[in-house]
C-alpha cells in the first residue's frame, strides 16, 4: 500500500490529483515513496506504468528523462533495429516537445514508433519503455500539448531540482539474491559468446561453476517464462561460460579489470561462499585481502558439506582459483579467536565475518546425549566424508574410534543410519551414507513429501529415493536407546496433519499408539545449524538476532561495531549459497567505500535494487505476448542409479550444447528499466 497522487502501476488507475484527503485512493503496491533516509521520491516510472508522489512533477520532463535512460542503459539495448532507432527517436521527439519546439505531428510519431517498439523489439526494455510514456501522454496530454501549442519549455525543463535515478532489472535478476545479470549470461550462451556469458555472471557472482550446479535457483520460481509454459533452466546455463574458460585453459575472465592496489587491507574470516565472494570483489577494487580459514581446505561448506557427486571439487577449485588469481591471500588451518579479532582491528581497515553456521542443532529427544556413540552431527559427518573423498584427508584415529569406524574413512558397511532433517544438508547425509555402503538409510521428517521437495528440489528427493533412501514422513525421534553409551535403537513418534476447524493452517498432532522402535547404529541430526560466534570479543557487544546470528540491517551488512561486517549464514542463519554470495557482494561493495571514506553508504544502484525487490519485479499474473508457448524446458541427462549409487561421480551431466542452445533460445530477455525521480 502506498500513498500516491497518481498511479498506473500494473494497470491500476489511481488519480488523486485535486481530490480531498478523505477521497484518496492508495496504490496497492510497495512503491518507493522514500528514496533513502535523505530524500522523498517525487515519482516512480517503469515498465509497467508510472506513479507520482508529488503534485508538482514535470511529467513531460519525466517522460523525456525516462526515454533518455533507454539510451544510457545501452548494455541491454542497441541490439535490435526497433529499439536502437526507436529509442532514440522517442527521446529526440520528447525532448523537442519538452524544450518547447515540438509539433502536434510529433505526438503522432511518438505513438507510431511506440507501437512498433512494443510489437517488434528484441527484449522487454524495447517493448516496455513506451508503456509509461504512452500513459503520461494519455493522462497528461494537456501538459504535452501546452508545450507544443505555446512553444514553451515544460515547467521544470531548465531546472536542475530533480535527480533521476534509473536501474535495469529483470524478474529473475530481482529474485536472485546475488542479482546476477541472468538475461546477459543466457544471451552469451545463445550467441555462443561464452566468455561474455561468464563475465556477465561474474559481475555479481564469482562462483559460476558452483552456482551452475548447487543453487536452489529462486530465479526460476520468478522466471517470466513460467507464465507462458515452464521456467528457463537458468541455473544450469551458467555452467557453459565457466566450462568454456576451464576447458580451453584461458586465464580468468573477470568482469572488469582489477584496480591497482589502493593500500587498504581487509580481513575475511571464513573461506566459504560468502568469504570467497567478499574477497573477490574487494580484491577487484584494489584492496588487499587476507582470508582466514579454520579448515585445512578452502571452500567452506560447499567443499566439506556438499558432496562430490553434486559439486565436484575440481570445478569448485576453479572458482576458488579465480578468487586467488586476484592476489587474495589465503591462510588455512587458522581458527580466528577473539584475541585475533581485537588485533585485526588494528591491522586491517575492515573485517568481514563469514564463518557460516557449523554447529549441528539437536533433535530434542529423550536421552539425547552427545557422548553416545552413534550420535553424530551432520556437519561433522559430512566433513569426514568429504575431506576423504575430495582431499584424501583420512579420518583421524580418535574420530574413528569415536564413531566406530572400521577404517580411516567413513565406511558404513552393514550399518543402519537414521537422519533427522528435511533440508539439503540431510539429503547430503543420506546420499553420502548410501555411497558409504550403509545397509539401511532412513530419513525421518516431520512434514510431508511435498514440503521436503519444496525445501530441497524435486530432483534431489527423487534421486535419493532411487538410490534406496527410505523416507518416513510425519515422524520424529522421541528417544535414543543406548547400551553402555552405544546407540542401539530409536523410539519414533508418528504424526498426522489435523485440519484446523477454524480454517487456519493444519496442525501436526502426534498419533497416540503409533510410535515404534527402530534399530539403528547412527543417528545424524541434520535439523538445522547454528553459528559459532566465540570469535566476537564479548566487550564489543555485537548485536545478535533472535536466532543467535550476527545482526545487521540487511542492506549494508555492517554489525553494530563499526568496521566489522558480517555476511552469509553467520548473519542470516543457514541459507543458500547464492544468498551468501549476494550478501557478501553487497558487503564488499559497502566495505570498499568504507575503507576509503569511513562512511557507510549504498550506491544508487544498490538503493534501487532494494526498492525493486520490495516492489517485486515478477508479476505472475502477467499475460505474455510475443512468444510462442509450448517449447519444452530442456533436462540434462543424469547418471542411472546403478551408475551412481556406489561412487562419487557427478550425478548430472549438464546440458549438451544442443540442449543448452535450445534452452537459451527460450529466454525472453525480460529486461526492464525502472526510474525514481527525487
Amino acid at each position, binding site marked *: 500500500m502506498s500513498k500516491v497522487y497518481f498511479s498506473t502501476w500494473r494497470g491500476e488507475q489511481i488519480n488523486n490529483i485535486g481530490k480531498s484527503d478523505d477521497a484518496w485512493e492508495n496504490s496497492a503496491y510497495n512503491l518507493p515513496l522514500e528514496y533513502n533516509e535523505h530524500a522523498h521520491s517525487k515519482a516512480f516510472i517503469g515498465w509497467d506504468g508510472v506513479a507520482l508522489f508529488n503534485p508538482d512533477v514535470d511529467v513531460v520532463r519525466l517522460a523525456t528523462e525516462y526515454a533518455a535512460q*533507454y*539510451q*544510457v542503459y*545501452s*548494455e*541491454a*539495448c*542497441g*541490439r*535490435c*533495429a*526497433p*529499439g*536502437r*532507432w*526507436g*529509442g*532514440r*527517436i522517442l527521446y*529526440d521527439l520528447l525532448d523537442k516537445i519538452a524544450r518547447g519546439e515540438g509539433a502536434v505531428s510529433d505526438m503522432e*510519431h511518438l505513438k*507510431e*514508433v511506440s*507501437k*512498433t517498439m512494443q*510489437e*517488434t*523489439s*528484441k527484449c522487454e526494455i524495447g517493448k516496455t519503455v513506451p508503456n509509461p510514456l504512452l500513459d503520461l501522454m494519455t493522462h497528461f496530454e494537456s501538459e504535452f500539448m501546452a508545450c507544443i501549442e505555446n512553444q514553451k519549455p515544460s515547467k521544470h525543463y531548465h531546472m536542475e531540482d530533480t535527480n533521476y535515478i534509473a536501474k535495469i532489472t529483470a524478474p529473475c535478476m530481482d529474485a536472485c539474491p546475488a542479482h546476477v545479470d541472468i538475461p546477459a549470461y543466457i544471451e552469451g550462451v*545463445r*550467441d*555462443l*559468446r561464452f566468455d561474455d556469458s561468464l563475465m556477465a555472471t561474474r559481475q555479481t557472482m564469482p562462483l559460476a561453476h558452483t552456482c551452475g550446479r548447487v543453487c536452489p535457483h529462486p530465479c526460476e520460481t520468478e522466471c517470466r517464462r513460467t507464465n507462458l509454459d515452464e521456467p528457463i533452466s537458468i541455473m544450469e546455463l551458467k555452467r*557453459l561460460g565457466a566450462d568454456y574458460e576451464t*576447458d*580451453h*585453459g*584461458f586465464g580468468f575472465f573477470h568482469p572488469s579489470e582489477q584496480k591497482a592496489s589502493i593500500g587498504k587491507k581487509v580481513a575475511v574470516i571464513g573461506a566459504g561462499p560468502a568469504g570467497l565472494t567478499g574477497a573477490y570483489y574487494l580484491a577487484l577494487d584494489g584492496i588487499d585481502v587476507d582470508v582466514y580459514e579454520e579448515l585445512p581446505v578452502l571452500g567452506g561448506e560447499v567443499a566439506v558439506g556438499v558432496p562430490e557427486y553434486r559439486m565436484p571439487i575440481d570445478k569448485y577449485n576453479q572458482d576458488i582459483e579465480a578468487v586467488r588469481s586476484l592476489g587474495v591471500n589465503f591462510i588455512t588451518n587458522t581458527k580466528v579467536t577473539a584475541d585475533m579479532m581485537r588485533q585485526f582491528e588494528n591491522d586491517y581497515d575492515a573485517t568481514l565475518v563469514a564463518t557460516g553456521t557449523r554447529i549441528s542443532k539437536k533433535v530434542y529427544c529423550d536421552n539425547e546425549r552427545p557422548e553416545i556413540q552413534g550420535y553424530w552431527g551432520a556437519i561433522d559427518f559430512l566433513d569426514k566424508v568429504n575431506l576423504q573423498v575430495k582431499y584424501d584427508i583420512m579420518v583421524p584415529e580418535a574420530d574413528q574410534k569415536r564413531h566406530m569406524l572400521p577404517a580411516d574413512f567413513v565406511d558404513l558397511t552393514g550399518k543402519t543410519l537414521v537422519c533427522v532433517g528435511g533440508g539439503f544438508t540431510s539429503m547430503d547425509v543420506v546420499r553420502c551414507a548410501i555411497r558409504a555402503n550403509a545397509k539401511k538409510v532412513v530419513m525421518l521428517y516431520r512434514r510431508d513429501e511435498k514440503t521436503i521437495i519444496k525445501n530441497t528440489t524435486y530432483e534431489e528427493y527423487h534421486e535419493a529415493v532411487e538410490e534406496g533412501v527410505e523416507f518416513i514422513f510425519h515422524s520424529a525421534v522421541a528417544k535414543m536407546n543406548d547400551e553402555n553409551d552405544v546407540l542401539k535403537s530409536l523410539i519414533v513418534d508418528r504424526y498426522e496433519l489435523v485440519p484446523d476447524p477454524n480454517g487456519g493452517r493444519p496442525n501436526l498432532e502426534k498419533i497416540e499408539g503409533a510410535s515404534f522402535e527402530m534399530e539403528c547404529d547412527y543417528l545424524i541430526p541434520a535439523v538445522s545449524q547454528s553459528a559459532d560466534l566465540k570469535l566476537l570479543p564479548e566487550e564489543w557487544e555485537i548485536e545478535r538476532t533472535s536466532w543467535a546470528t550476527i545482526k545487521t540491517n540487511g542492506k549494508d551488512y555492517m554489525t553494530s561495531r563499526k568496521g566489522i561486517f558480517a555476511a552469509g549464514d553467520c548473519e542470516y542463519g543457514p541459507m543458500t549459497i547464492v544468498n551468501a554470495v549476494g550478501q557478501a557482494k553487497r558487503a564488499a561493495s559497502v566495505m570498499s567505500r568504507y575503507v576509503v571514506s569511513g562512511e557507510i553508504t549504498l550506491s544508487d544502484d544498490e538503493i534501487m535494487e532494494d526498492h525493486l525487490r520490495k516492489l517485486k519485479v515478477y508479476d505472475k499474473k502477467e*499475460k505474455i*505476448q*510475443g*512468444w*510462442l*508457448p*509450448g*517449447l519444452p524446458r530442456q533436462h540434462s541427462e543424469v547418471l542411472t542409479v546403478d551408475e551412481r549409487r556406489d561412487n562419487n561421480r557427478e550425478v548430472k*551431466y549438464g546440458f*549438451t*550444447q*544442443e540442449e*543448452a*542452445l*535450445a534452452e537459451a*533460445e527460450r529466454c525472453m530477455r525480460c529486461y526492464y528499466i525502472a526510474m525514481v525521480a527525487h
Partner: protein
Amino acid sequence: MINFTINGQPVIASQGETILQAARKAGFYIPTMCYLEKTTPCASCRLCVVETDKTDGLILSCQTPPTEGLGVTINSERLEQERTNIMRLYDVNHPLECGVCDKSGACDLQNKTLEFGVSAQHFSAKEQHRKIEHWGLINYDPSLCILCEKCVHVCNEIIGDDAITLQFGGYKSAVIPKNSEKLDCTFCGECIAVCPVGALVSSEFQYSANAWELTQVPATCAHCSAGCSLMYEVKHTSTSNASDRIYRVTNDFEHTTLCGAGRFGFDFDHQSAKDPAEFAKAITAIQKADAVRFNSLITNEEAMILQRLKEKLGVKLYNEEARAYQNFMSAYSSISGKTGFGGSLDAISQSDAIIVIGGRISTDNPAVRYAMTTAARHNGAKVVYMHPLEDELLQNVVTQFVKYEVGTEEGVVAMLAKTLLSHEDISEEVRAYFDGLDEGYLCAESNVGDEEYARIAKSIARSKRKTLVLGSDLLHHNRAMNIARLCAMIETYTEFSVVVVAPSVNTVGVSLICDLDFDKGGDSVIGYNAAGNYTMGSIGEVMLNLPALNSQEGTFVNINYQVLPTNVAVAFRGYTLNDIANELGVNAQHTIDYTAALPITKGFNGSSFDNLGNFYTSLGEDTRGYLLENSDVEANGILEEVENLPEFNGTVVYRCNPVNQFNGYTARTAQLEKEAALRGSAQFAAAAKIGDGDKIQIEFTGETQERIFKLDAALKGTIALIPAYDVAYGALNEQYRFEKVKIMKMGSES
C-alpha cells in the same frame, strides 16, 4: 517431425528447425536483414516477425521452432505495417551516398527499402558524426552500419578469430575490435562478405568498381586442399586497357566460408605472349627428358595429360608430395578396405569430438579450422590437438592440447589407437598387438603420459559424432605407412571418421591420376612449377610460361574426395600444357576434354566438364562437381611393430606458413602479408644463440636459406617456424616437416 501450417498450407519442420528455416524450405518468403544461415540467429532486425494462432503478439520466426499444429501467418496488413516501420527506422539518417558506395546494387538495405516502398525519411533523429575506421585490408564505416551483427557472429562462430564485437550504446552502437585497439585477426574478410550494406568493405577494392559492372566467374580456390568455392569478379582493367583483371573475390557466404588467401590472394595470374621459338625448345626438352617433375598446383586434366605423356613417351613423373599421399592412402586402404577415408569437412563441422594430430591445421587448411570452430561453438565439441607445437589460433577451440616430441608420431598414433580401440570389438590378433605395445617406452619417448590418453578417452566418452584429422606431418614421416595403418584401424573399428589433410589444392587428384615414380633426380628433368633442367609453368622463373590456375579451366579433387570445377578468370594468351601435348602426339582439342577421361577405376564418374555444377542452391545444397566413389578394396594389410622412436635434439625448425600464405601464388599477390622471418621462442633464440631481428643463415640437409629471426612470444620450446611459401619450389610438402638445422648469425637487421 513437426506438422504446422504457413498461411494455411501444411508444412513440416524437422526437430530443431525454426519456422523461418521450414518456411524457406517450403518455398515461403519471409524478409530478413540479419539472418545468416550458417550462424545462430542474430535476431536484431525483427523483420521476420510472423503471426500465429497461439500467440497474441508477433513472434520471431528466425529463432522460434514451430509447435505441433501451429498456424503461422507470414503476410498480413499488420505484419506489413510493422515491417515497413522497421525499414523506416533502418533508413533514419542512413547516409545517402549510394552513388559511391561499394555495396550499391547488391545492398540488402537498398533492396528492402525498395521492397517496402520507403521513399522518404519518415522519422528523424539527431545526426551523428562517426569516424571511418581503417583496419588494414578492411575498412569500417559505422554510419553505414545497420548493426545486424552478422559479422560478429561469423567471426566468432565460424572463423574462430572472435576479433570483433558490438559496442553496445543504443543509437551509438558500433562494431569494434574485441580486446584490442586495432583489428587483430587473420583477415579472412568473412565480415566483409556477410555485411549486408557497405559498412565493412575491402580497403583495396573500395571505390574501384560497381557491383553491376563485374562479371562473376565461379571457380575453386587454388590455395589449399579444401578447394573452397569462390567467385572471381572481373572487369576490364582500365579505360586504356580492355583486358580483364580480377577486382575481387566473393563467396556464397550463406553456405560457404573463405579464408583471407582465397579472398584477398586472387591476383596471381600472369601473362605471356606465344613465342614459337621457346615453344619449340620446350618440345625438344620434353622429348629428351627422363622425367617431368611437377607440384600439385595442377588440375586433374593437366595431371591426366602428364600421365598420357608418360604412357606415350616413357618419361617418369616426379611429385614427391602426391606420391607420399598415394603411399599413405594405399597403406590406409590395406586396413580399411576402402579406397578413401570416410570423413569430410562437413563431418568435422558436425562432430562433437575431434582429434587432430600431425599438422598445423589452422594455417595448413583454414577450412578445417573453420569446421573445427563450428563444431566447438555449435556442438560444444571436445577438441584434442596433438602436436609438438601449441597453436594460439586454436586456443578457443582446443579443449586438450597434447604435446609430443618431434618424430614420435608413430608411437603417439599407436597409443591413441590403443586408447580408442580399447572397448571395441577387435580380433584377438589386433588386441594382442596393442597389448604388446611397450607403453612405458612409448610414453616416455614421446613425452605423452598415460593420463593424457585416459583424459582423451574420458572427455570423448559421451560424444556421438567423432572425427580424426590427420595432418601432413604424417605423410612424410619415415613410418608414414604404419601410421596410416594404425589410423585406419581407428576408422575401421570405432565411430571415428577420418580426414587426411592433403597439402595442396590437388594432391588428392594427382595421387589418383598419375602413376608416380620415386624422384631420384636426373640430368634431364622437366620442371613444371618445380625445379628442373628445363622449366615451365606459372611459378618462379620459368623458361616457358603456362597459365596460372586462375587462368585455367579444369577440376581438382579436395579433401572431401569431391571433384570440383574451376574456370578461367583471366584469359591467358600464351601456350598451355595441352598445346605441348598435342605437339607430342597426345591429342585433345581442349584441356577439359580430359575431364570425362579421368580414371573411373579411381572413382571418377566420366562426367564431362560442361556437365559439372558449380554453385550452391539457395537452400545450401552443394551442386559443385561430384563425389568420387569410395569403393571397396582388399584389406590385407598387417600392422607392423612400432619402431624405435627417433630423437630430434638441438635446434629444430618446422616448415609452416604464416596465416594466409600457402604457395608461390599467394607469395606474389598484392594484398597478403608476406611474413618471411624465422619465428621462434626466447628458448629457441638462446639455444641457437641468436636474437630478435638477427639476420641468420639456416642450413638444412640440402639447402641454405638466409632469413631474419623474430622472437614470437606466442611460441614456446626449441622449435622455430620457418615459412616455405616464399621459396619458389619449397620442400614444405615433400619432406618431413620438422628438421634439425644449423643456424648461424650473419648480422643484425638494423
